[in-house]
């Protein structure tokens, strides 16, 4: 007896020895590799945006000097912009400008692109965040319900609901939503973020309308902002819900047959705890990726939704800039979106290690 116990114990010890010793070194290694990968990704992003800027058939001078400028003005402008330099010198210049936070000026507004983005991005952020909240709060329970009622009518209904979220065009949903809930029923507010009545009385502190109205202590304005937000957020939330429901369902189904689930039931745990504590704990990592992906997708600025709802977000900004051939603005916004993507990836990586002991 004592011998067998000893063996088990020793096996455990030898496994733990490097854990205690290498913990710090592994953490450092991890941080280092994360930094390296972020730097490389950002560099790649800048290379790509730079070359897109050179390749697209838009004359960068056109937006600066107009189409009727005499030749010497064009040449002077080209020199000012560094367009006469070899390509690699141009790239270095681009790189150093970006690193100093200089994304150039938007032709359309005459403002620095970063200032523009700081003005438009919060609208997208607010919309995407509320939509993702809707998607998670409904999508996860729906996915769980579908998996636990696998093959029964609840599952079928949920599958149809999710499938519709994939296949119905979002601008159509937005238009129908406006028609029904705004024009016909009058339950929600129409396009825009807030009624003109409040538009100029609210100090833009964070740029998030719900937060700013609360900070201003204006309850009527808060409610108005809420009723403006709810419809576009629901439309996008439905999109996110469809994706999250489907992923949750299939992740759950793969997990439900596992031995540890049976063990949890053998212990006498009620099914509720078996599902929400044991199974959900095990699909947390892929679920976090799913949510992060859908959030990132919405943060790109849902162009169609923002257009339908006249929502002054990043999507709308990019479209407007594209239509006026404002390449500086488009690329600036692209870089910001890329950075948001990288940031979200980093965050979900970080959450993994918190959630999954095997990843530590």
């Amino acid at each position, binding site marked *: 007896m004592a011998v067998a116990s000893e063996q*088990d*114990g020793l096996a455990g010890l030898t496994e733990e020895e490097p854990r205690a010793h290498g913990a710090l070194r592994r953490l450092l290694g991890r941080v280092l590799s994360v930094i390296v990968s972020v730097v490389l990704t950002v560099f790649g992003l800048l290379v790509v945006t730079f070359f897109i800027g050179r390749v697209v058939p838009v004359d960068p001078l056109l937006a600066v000097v107009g189409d009727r400028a005499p030749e010497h003005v064009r040449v002077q402008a080209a020199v000012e912009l560094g367009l006469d330099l070899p390509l690699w010198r141009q790239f270095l210049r681009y790189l150093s400008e970006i690193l100093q936070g200089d994304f150039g000026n938007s032709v359309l507004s005459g403002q620095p692109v970063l200032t523009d983005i700081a003005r438009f991005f919060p609208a997208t952020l607010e919309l995407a965040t509320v939509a993702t909240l809707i998607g998670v709060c409904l999508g996860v329970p729906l996915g769980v319900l579908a998996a636990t009622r696998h093959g029964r009518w609840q599952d079928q209904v949920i599958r149809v609901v999710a499938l519709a979220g994939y296949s119905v065009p979002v601008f159509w949903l937005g238009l129908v939503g406006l028609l029904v809930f705004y024009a016909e029923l009058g339950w929600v507010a129409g396009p825009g973020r807030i009624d003109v009545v409040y538009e100029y009385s609210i100090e833009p502190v964070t740029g998030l309308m719900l937060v700013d109205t609360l900070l201003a202590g204006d309850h009527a304005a808060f409610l108005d902002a809420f009723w403006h937000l709810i419809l576009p957020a629901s439309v996008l939330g439905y999109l996110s819900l469809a994706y999250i429901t489907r992923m949750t369902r299939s992740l759950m189904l793969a997990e439900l*047959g596992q031995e*540890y689930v049976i063990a949890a039931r053998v212990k006498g745990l009620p*099914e509720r705890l078996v599902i929400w504590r044991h199974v959900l704990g095990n699909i947390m990592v892929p679920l976090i990726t799913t949510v992060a992906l859908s959030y990132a997708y919405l943060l790109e600025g849902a162009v169609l939704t923002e257009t339908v709802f006249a929502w002054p977000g990043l999507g709308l900004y990019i479209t407007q800039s594209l239509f006026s051939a404002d390449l500086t603005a488009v690329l600036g916004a692209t870089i910001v979106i890329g950075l948001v993507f990288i940031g979200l990836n980093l965050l979900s990586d970080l959450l993994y290690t918190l959630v999954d002991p095997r990843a530590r």
Partner: protein
Amino acid sequence: MSTPLLEVRGLRVAFPGQEGLREVVRGISFTVGCEKVGIVGESGSGKSMTARAILDLIPPPGRVSADRLTFAGQDLTRLKPGERTRLRGRRIAMVLQDPRHALNPVMTIGAQLAETFRLHHRLSRGEARRRSIEALDAVHIRDPERVVRLYPHEISGGMGQRAMIAMMLAPGPELLLADEPTSALDATVEAGILETLDELVTARGMGLVLVSHDLDLVAAFCDRVLVFYAGRIVEELPARDLAQARHPYTQGLLACVPRLGERRRELPVLRRDPSWAAS
């Protein structure tokens, strides 16, 4: 032993398949008292399904029926699902085959043990933790204060199975089903685990059903042996008489057991006869 702990009469488990229902357990009857009963039989003979049917854990779309299924005089077939759940763990528990899969990979050993204590004894967090450490100590895990903080992937298979036994015995069940508790482990660890199991089961006066492929092990460890073949029990006999088994299937199984120091030209082929399962 007037009323046996567990009484099973005409237990059937079936799964719907292409050609209608396929019965994998076909009318099994046996009783278990405060004793150690071994179940042997080849792969697919329905051993695990029998154990799971007793716990009401046959996965859908499987169907279970029984003429009689009683535990300590209580008719299990009449219980509501909630009452059946409450019986699990608390009065009948099961040790699963492979601790590497049967322990939740994202919860510490301590959390999984404490959860069981809290569920069945309504203990405070601190008290549950203290009892978990005691329980690990009782299954001869060294340094239990450290082990409660570890995750399943950080401990050896043998230690995992000990933790599993501790977890399943935590609520103080009267009957323990052990479904091949050592077949996923090294042979060197096996003896120790079984000894611990024996020690605890005997000390608590529990009933034990040990499912195993290993006839020698069952003969040495159990009081009585049930031989399964194709969803039926073909022979039931005292473990010490296993060597004198009369049924051709059991004799065949015995002939397949390799003996140390014995030379064989080729392994004997197990004889099977559908008529054995028909009777």
